[in-house]
């Protein structure tokens, strides 16, 4: 018989159990990062797969988001006669908020799901068990380079996204709407503080990178060894990753005001 209280209890227990497992998993990944051997080759390969292959999507989306912010910002600011502040608006919104968040969301869909699917397939085809039987730690050999690459890739791509976004805002605000390029650049320079704004944006992107790296690898590593299990793990990486990014974005902003 359907018992809503039992269901809530079961779901809560499952959630807590996952949190506990994830904590143990994260500690294991942390241990592998500091334990030899150093897997430079694997790290570079993952950096290429997760980062370099995501460059185009990040660049294009950065320009598109910058163009939208530029257009919306120009219309809104012109109403108050403040269109000279377009550079500040585009710069601050990209550096403090849109850059880290949108990059993390895009990478959840592009790189996070790919990492989960790859690890999940290795689980389903017993490749990780094969490594264990050769006395090779699969967390050290497979998981750690992927997670570490994700930690590094998110902040790097966030920077690229922001630069592309500013370019998009410039193209629309100056090229299409006829704004003043000097005002755009000077308002951008005068309003952006390196410590508060750039530092804050970087902190967010580092936190999102760690979150995504751990969520994507954990979901793949704990996926059921079936094709359905792999597909469900991939979906849950995108869902949990996106929700976590938005939640942590609020928490970081509320706690540190960045």
């Amino acid at each position, binding site marked *: 018989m359907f018992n809503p209280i039992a269901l809530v209890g079961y779901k809560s227990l499952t959630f807590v159990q996952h949190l506990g497992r994830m904590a143990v998993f994260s500690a294991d990944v942390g241990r592998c990062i500091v334990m030899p051997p150093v897997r430079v080759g694997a790290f570079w390969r993952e950096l290429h797969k997760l980062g370099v292959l995501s460059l185009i999507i990040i660049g294009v989306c950065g320009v598109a988001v910058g163009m939208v912010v530029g257009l919306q910002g120009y219309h809104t600011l012109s109403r108050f006669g403040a269109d000279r502040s377009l550079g500040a608006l585009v710069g601050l919104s990209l550096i403090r908020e849109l850059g880290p968040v949108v990059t993390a969301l895009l990478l959840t869909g592009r790189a996070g799901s790919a990492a989960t699917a790859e690890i999940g397939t290795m689980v389903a085809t017993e490749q990780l068990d*094969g490594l264990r039987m050769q006395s090779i730690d699969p967390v050290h050999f497979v998981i750690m380079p992927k997670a570490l690459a994700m930690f590094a890739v998110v902040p790097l791509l966030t920077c690229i996204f922001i630069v592309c976004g500013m370019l998009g805002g410039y193209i629309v605000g100056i090229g299409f709407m006829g704004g003043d390029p000097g005002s755009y650049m000077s308002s951008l320079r005068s309003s952006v503080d390196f410590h508060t704004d750039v530092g804050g944006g970087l902190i967010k992107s580092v936190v999102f990178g760690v979150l995504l790296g751990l969520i994507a690898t954990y979901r793949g590593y704990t996926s059921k060894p079936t094709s359905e299990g792999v597909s469900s793990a991939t979906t849950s990486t995108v869902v949990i990753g996106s929700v976590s990014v938005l939640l942590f974005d609020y928490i970081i902003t509320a706690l540190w005001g960045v």
Partner: protein
Amino acid sequence: MQTLVNNGPVMLKGLFSRLTGSADEIRRPHARLDKTMHVALDHVSMSYGERKVFENLSCGFPRGRISVILGGSGSGKSTVLRLIGGLISPQTGSVIVDGQDVTGLSERGLYNVRKKLGMLFQGGALLDSYNVFENLALPLQEQSRMSRSEIAQEVHATLKAVGVEDVAELLPGQLSGGMLRRVALARAIIRKPTILLCDEPFSGLDPVSIKRIEALLMAINQKHTITLIVVSHHVPSTMRMADRVLLLLGKRAVEGRPEELRRGPDKEAAEFLNDGMEQPAGRE
């Protein structure tokens, strides 16, 4: 990590025993177990969720011999291999590998035990993004102090020994079923294990490939005196190669020499083996 979580109670037992100084007692094999056995299961119970696979299973696999585990689908044949490899832990009982109880060992402790083991997985379990050479070289690169040229030499020699020396540059996805099985066998033996676990080495193969793999396994056993534990559905090959058979029959298990079981008083065991002998070669 999965192992850590799933096997929490067993690992806690190991931790507790270490803290209280009773580790040796727990590690010592059950007195009842035969010393000639290289691998033994002692009163092992195993279940996946609600489904019980077996209860109180005790059996042994003699040193340097070929033992074959037979049984119907879902009888827990592959589970026995995974228990021996420490990939899963039993709910109760002990699994003793070369005199050491592996049930309470940490993952790090298991890595030392696994240095004595080689495992041929049913699907090969080769890394699909690595070519055959890289797959075979990996355990040597990770575990030994051999130079690159020594590793290359060893890999090519092992591939030659299993009869697939010309596939070193191919990816596992480019190999046929029989070749994949032989490459997986090469990977399993490249570290020169003393115990070789083979999960369904004949499944999905044509009769010629079955005979080739069978001959290969027997040659490995004779040349290196490796203890071979093979899980199979294939009764004819079992009758040809096995020194000892463990037959899992639902709630009970019987073990003995293949001919003894086939002609022995246990009707169910005899029927299983005799019916199996009539199946067309290569059918799993």
